């Protein structure tokens, strides 16, 4: 079931021109190191069993480092298989800023956190609300605009997105 959802999720990502890979908990730091364009900043992952230590990502950036970063690395608390959406929460570690400022966003998703569709994702978010975590964005593909007469990707938010899915142990 979870494997099917991850496949569906990856198909949706393909449709959004979002690149993706699968890895394991042990391999995560190395995978992230390969996926980022330096300089990279990040927000600490919220899970005890996963870490960005060893990935070379700066997890406590200054304002200037945030402004100048080429890549931002964050967790996505959940992901929507049908749409390819990442749920990035507003956390004290700076996930919101890190996911929106740099031109490249690398998101870490746990395979078990991929849910089927938007209603399921909002159900998941309802549990988070109950736990006091009540701000999140459904980020789906790169930022985009058609306001200049044709579709351009990479506006105020990232122009490139890469997803690293971590298989369940």
């Amino acid at each position, binding site marked *: 079931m979870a494997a099917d959802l991850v496949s569906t999720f990856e198909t949706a990502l393909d449709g959004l021109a979002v690149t993706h890979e699968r890895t394991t908990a042990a391999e995560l730091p190395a995978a992230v190191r390969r996926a980022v364009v330096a300089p990279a900043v990040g927000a600490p992952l919220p899970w005890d069993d996963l870490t960005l230590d060893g990935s070379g990502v700066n997890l*406590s*950036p*200054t*304002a*200037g480092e*945030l*402004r100048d970063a080429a890549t931002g690395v964050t967790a996505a608390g959940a992901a*929507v298989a049908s*749409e390819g*959406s990442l749920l990035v929460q*507003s*956390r*004290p*570690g*700076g*996930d*919101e*800023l890190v996911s*929106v*400022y740099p031109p490249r966003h690398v998101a870490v998703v746990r395979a078990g956190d991929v849910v089927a569709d*938007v*209603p399921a994702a*909002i159900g998941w*978010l*309802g549990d988070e*609300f109950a736990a006091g975590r*009540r*701000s*999140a*964005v*459904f*980020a*789906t*593909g*790169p*930022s*985009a*605009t*058609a*306001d*200049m*007469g*044709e*579709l*351009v990707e*990479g*506006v*105020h*938010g*990232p122009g490139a997105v890469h997803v690293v899915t971590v298989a369940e142990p």
Partner: protein
Amino acid sequence: MTARRETAARLHRLVEDEGDAVYANTTVHNAGRVAVNASWDRYEANRARARAIKEDAIERLPELLETLEAAVTANGGHLYLADDAADANDYIAGVCRERDAETLVKSKSMTTEELGVNEALAEAGVDVYETDLGEFVVQVAHEQPSHLVGPAIHKTTEEIADLFNAVFEPDEPLETAEALTDFARDYLGERIREADVGMTGANFVLAESGSVVIVTNEGNARKSAVTPPVHVAVAGIEKVIPSLADLPPFVELIGKSAAGQSISRYVTILTPPTDSPMVDFDRPDEGLAPADREFHLVLVDNGRWAMRDDGTLRETLYCVRCGACANSCANFQRVGGHAFGGETYTGGIATGWEAGIEGLDVAGTFNDLCTGCSRCVPACPVKIDIPWINTVVRDRLNRGAPPGAFDPLVEGLVPDAEPGGLSAQKRLFGDVGTLLRLGSATAPVSNWLAASRPVRAVLEWAVGLDPDRPLPTFRRRTFARWFAGRDGGAARGASKESASDVVLFPDLYTNHVRVERGRAAVRALEAVGCSVSISQPLESGRAPLSQGMVATAAERAERVFESLEPHLDAGRDVVVVEPSDLAMLRREYERLLPGPAFDRLSGRAFEVGEYLRRCLDEGADADALGAGDGRAVAYHSHCQQRTLDLEGPTVDLLERRGFDVTTSAVECCGMAGSFGYKAEYAGLSRDVGAPLAEAFGAVDGVLAASGTSCAEQLEDLLGRPVVHPVELLASGDGRRT
């Protein structure tokens, strides 16, 4: 007269200056919406759910606002309920003053356009920067948004490049959309990083948690909300829904409806003040600091409580501002929101917003551009009956007109339930039945007069009839007289046991003008085994309804029902040839007839193609209908027919009989009943019809249309005859009868 010419000239100018860009953008988004919704099986279920949530939320608004206030306060934010624009602007200026704010960055918000926040803050000494790229273009150009979602859709890439090159004088002149986007992102990125206050709108406000939901594609709302230490969110009170659990249908619908996106790029749910740390780009060497944020939610009345109490305008409050009504509107696609819009809002739903917020007079400046074609009805994700809002506002405008405005020439001709203040033009077109009867009774004299230049000049002067539009040719021998001449008008016995007993409703265009399609309908129905009677020829009420004459339309509806009731009692199904009249019986009569009468009639009324296919489905012999033998047919079904999802049956019939059918995705032919005959709109009507004429002009074959006005438009634009499809199906050899 002069006013009509001025209107025509103004519309023509807008079509010339902005029409191509508006057309390109709206039709792409419209086609995207149609495609994505067709690929999705939960569209109708989600619409029904979204509608129910909005109805409930507006009903319970006082209670929801109390819940919301408690939540926002508990979160550590401030809720301000503003009575009107001045009240809201004063509060926002006060927040800026408190923080000694010099600059404010804004993400896109129509409500702040309505309030004139930018001007009010400029007076208070605060520099405001629009960060949505479309809004930025409009701000730099000192123009008004031309669309709810795409404020700058009236500009081409080249025009934006010229604007930016002139205003910003970049080292390298900007040319491409990509270069323009990069430039705007860098310029606005600096403004965001240095701003003291960030302002956003809110697409939805969740009462239970005090959250705001902001839908964007660019990412500017997230940056504007979270970079400065102060976030001010501004929205109308109607944006409040109960809780997060009510959000799914809206998240699923809004991107699809707006632009054919399965989901918008960023659906941001913020419950401010959020936990995101503070960032100060003026101190680049300092790290991110623990959250210490200020949040103000400003909810605006500005006429909305009164709209809530207004039986018709209330529905406007369900609007999610997706712009689908504009994108699906043939007139809007040509003129854009600078003509089809008021002080702030644009497109079909703008009539409701502007009538409620600014007043009837503002709604009256563009309300005529809604022809009632109804193509926005299936497009609206919250099922708002936008044509009905336009009709009722038109009725109120008619009743509000000064009593001296009527014209005695027309007044005597058409007594009805309408006020004397009604314009002569609306009165004339609203009682087209009288004209058609007189036209037939006096044909061919009426046709000679209709073609006479001096007569047409008088008609233009007196009632605003466009002098260059050919008028329909009145027929001396009406359809009803032809029918009466057959067997003394008795229904011919059915040839088969399975026969259906039907009554054909002779709409007035079939009866007086396009008699052949009536005869063909009778023959085709009889060919598949129906026993056909006809009812009394009556005007359905469509004509007065389209002029905003609701009382007259209701009278007509009652007469039509009375004339059809004995036939329903006798077990007959009602078959209608003219789609605009069928749509009255099936859709609009719900507003005009008592419920049981509407239910009874609408359940038994059928479009002729729909009914013929039904007969085939029930076992009638398809070979009894004309064969196409591969002949090409370019078929334009009628707008109101398509809203009832009734294009398919006719296309299916033609294809089953071997015709090679080409259809059109054009939303409306542009004639739209009387619209294209009016002096001030005839030019626009032809412009709207041009893409259809171009597509069909290239087809080497028969031209067919189900609606009278579609046929008249195509005949005028292409100079070729146009038949009703039933004329192709009625004869044994598939040729026009």
